[in-house]
Every structure is written in C-alpha cells, then in structure tokens.
C-alpha cells in the first residue's frame, strides 16, 4: 500500500520560540483536562496558532498520532468484545486496517519524536454492537473535525499528506452512520475542532495515559 508523502520530521529541532509561545499560551487554558498528561501536551497545540512550521507540524502530528492510536485500539477491542456481525463487522475490520496504515504513516513521519502507545479505557463502548456504533460515529467525527481543524496550521506538504487520511475518516463516519440507518452526511460543511476539543473528545471515548 502506498503511503502519503509525509516528510520525516524528527531530524528537525523544534523551534524554541514557537514552543515557548505555545507553552505560555497553554498556561491560560489549563483546566481539569490538563491534569491528564497526554491531554495537557495537546492543549499546548490548541494555543499554538503560530504560522505553519516544521516544529508545529511535529506537535500536530503528535496529536494525530494519539487519535490514530485510539482508533486502532478501539476497533481492535470492539472486534474482540462487541459481538459485531454482518455489515458492522465488515466495517470495523476495514476501518481497523485503514487506521493501522494511518498510524504507521504518522509514526514513520514522526520517527524518534513519535510518542509511545497510550492506555485506553473504552468502558462499555466496545462491549456491544449498539454502543460500538455510537462511539464509532463519535470517534470518526472527531477524527474528521480534528484533522480539519489543523489544516491552516500545517505546512502545505504535511497538509497534502494529511488530506489523504481525513477523507478516509469521513468515509468511515458516513459508512457507519449508513449502517445504523442514520443520515450519513448531516451537514453541508464539516465543522472543525480545535486541538483542545479533539483531545477532550478522545478522552471521552477512552484515551488515557
């Protein structure tokens, strides 16, 4: 399978000025969420509205990495525990395969800067087909909104590579909705999420660490 051309970002040093600005910005946004280490790191990104740079790409891809880890773990666990059958099982298997490839591409791009696999607690969301369906819709919507929210923060090269992933997440979101008998594309334009909102959404789904 061909991967998008994410540029390797780990050889670059993070621009001190922009990361400091991000940290200072984050200080104002620290709430209960920031006590969770991974979410705390992501909050820094929410404040990093500096113009696109390789250093900022790294931070954004680290958030994306958490997202892809969450998706892989969610589908793996659901396929083991949720008793998925028929269309829903086919969807979960296909989505898992895609998310694994996304994860591999993001890890490769981040190289040594890729964080370790986080822990998860999906609770009941991976234990029944109806709960799985609702959580999958939520998770795929977070993926779309999270990627879209970073479009203007990414360098053009990384944006082009990320764009090859986000539309697949959108296809997943519509697919699982269609299986559930819902309107598959409810809005004319997908609303973006900030990094903070995306991190909060992932936490609600079950991302820990």
């Amino acid at each position, binding site marked *: *399978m*061909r*991967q*998008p051309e994410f540029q390797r970002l780990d050889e670059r040093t993070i621009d001190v000025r922009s990361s400091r600005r991000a940290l200072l910005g984050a200080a104002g946004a620290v709430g209960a969420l920031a006590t969770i280490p991974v979410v705390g790191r992501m909050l820094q990104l929410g404040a990093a509205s500096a113009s696109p740079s390789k250093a900022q790409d790294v931070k954004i891809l680290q958030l994306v990495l958490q997202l892809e880890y969450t998706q892989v773990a969610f589908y793996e666990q659901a396929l083991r525990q949720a008793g998925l059958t028929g269309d829903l099982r086919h969807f979960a298997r*296909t*989505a898992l*395969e*895609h*998310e*694994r*490839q*996304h994860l591999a*591409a993001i890890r490769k791009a981040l190289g040594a800067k890729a964080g370790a696999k986080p822990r998860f607690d999906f609770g009941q969301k991976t234990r029944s087909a109806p709960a799985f369906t609702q959580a999958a819709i939520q998770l795929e919507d977070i993926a*779309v909104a999270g*990627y*879209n929210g970073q*479009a*203007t923060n990414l360098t*053009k*090269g990384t*944006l*082009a590579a990320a*764009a*090859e*992933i*986000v*539309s*697949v*997440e*959108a*296809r*997943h*979101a*519509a*697919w699982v909705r*269609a*299986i559930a008998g819902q*309107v*598959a*594309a*409810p*809005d*004319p*334009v*997908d*609303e*973006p999420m900030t990094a903070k909102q995306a991190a909060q959404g992932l936490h609600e789904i079950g991302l820990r660490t």
Partner: protein
Amino acid sequence: MDSFEHSADFLTTVDRDGALAETRSHAERTLSRRRLFGMTLAGAGAITIARTAGAHAAAGLPASDVDILNYALVLEYLQASFYTEAERSGALTGKTAEAARIVGATERAHVKAFLKLLGSQAVKRPTFDFQGTTEQQRPFLKTAVAFEDLAVAAYKGQAPKLQANPVLAAAVGIHSVEARHAAWMRQLFGITPAVDAFDRPASRRSINRVVASTQFIVSRPKLTGRKKPEFTG
C-alpha cells in the same frame, strides 16, 4: 502529486466501478444522434474557467484562490444540477431518494456559498446533459459515486494550493463532506464505501479530462424540440 496524468490510470482509480467510463461509452454511442441535432459539445472547453481580468479578486482574495474557487464552483454546479434533476425526475425511491434529496441540498448550498464568496467574479452555470443517468436509480447511483469520488480527489488536489486561510478552512470542511457523500452513495450502490487507507488527490487537468469525457457539460441549452418563433421582429 499529479500522478494521474494518464487518463486511463485515472479512470481506473477514481472511477473504480466504471461509471464514468460507461457513461462515456454511452455518450459515444449517442454522439452521432447528437451531431444530427447540431449540438455543440464543449467538453473540456466549458470547464476551462474564464479567467477574470485584472488583479482585483473577489473580497480581496488572492487571484489564484479565486481561480481555484471558480474551478470548485463548476464541480459544485455539476453536482447540484445532477441531484436536482434526479430528484425532479421522480425515478428515485426509498433510501436513495432520501439521500439524493439531502446531498442535493448540500451541493446547492455549496454553490450558493461559492457564488457569495466570488461575487461578480463567479463563473456562470454551464448547461448540462446527464445523458439519462438522472432518470433511473442504478445509473444515477453509479454516476453519483463517480462524481463524489471525483470531487474528493479534486478538493484534495487543490486544498494545499489555497492561500487565504478562511478559504482553506472552508474547502477542507467541504472536502470531507464530499467524502461522506461518496461513502454514502457507495453504500447505497452496494460497494465498499472506503476502499483504501489513503485517498489520492487528482490534478485539475485529470479532473477536467474525466469531466470532459462524460460529455455532461454542453455549451448551450438543448435545442431539441424547440421551435422557431412563429413571428419575428
């Protein structure tokens, strides 16, 4: 990025299920009849955007963004007209009719948004002839799948070229909606909504070539059946 310069490769990728290719061959079969009626087939000519003179872009947008927005507008016109015509034909039933109604409303909203954004610099709506694909459910779905996959690849190809951040933010929000539509239409047609882990972009040239090959864009309204006015002057 522009790795689809060979139209055959492009068609087999974007048009995985042969809808556009089939439509094209249908168009070729009917070509002689169409020539008989003296119709001018504009094909690629119609989608080639009339470049606006001068550097005064709409709402202070960079000229290159205006150009890309007009290109997107033509694709939105195409989709909006397609769904509207299908809805009016009354040929769609059940879930497909419902989806066409919702997706059609969305495509019309996209057209409206681009018209507002572009103001006087917006290109005019071309005349379309969907070659009967809006009059039966299966050909409708097959063509819808092709259009939506095409739109996803088109937006993906242009997004990194947009300069103004508000325009980019809007474009990515539409890009993912087109992907949702593509998945929905695929599901209704009975094929996998998400085939690969990565969706590839397509260049403008490739998109134009595919659109031209369908012959859905005609240069002027159908004249068939229209009589000359009885009185002139």
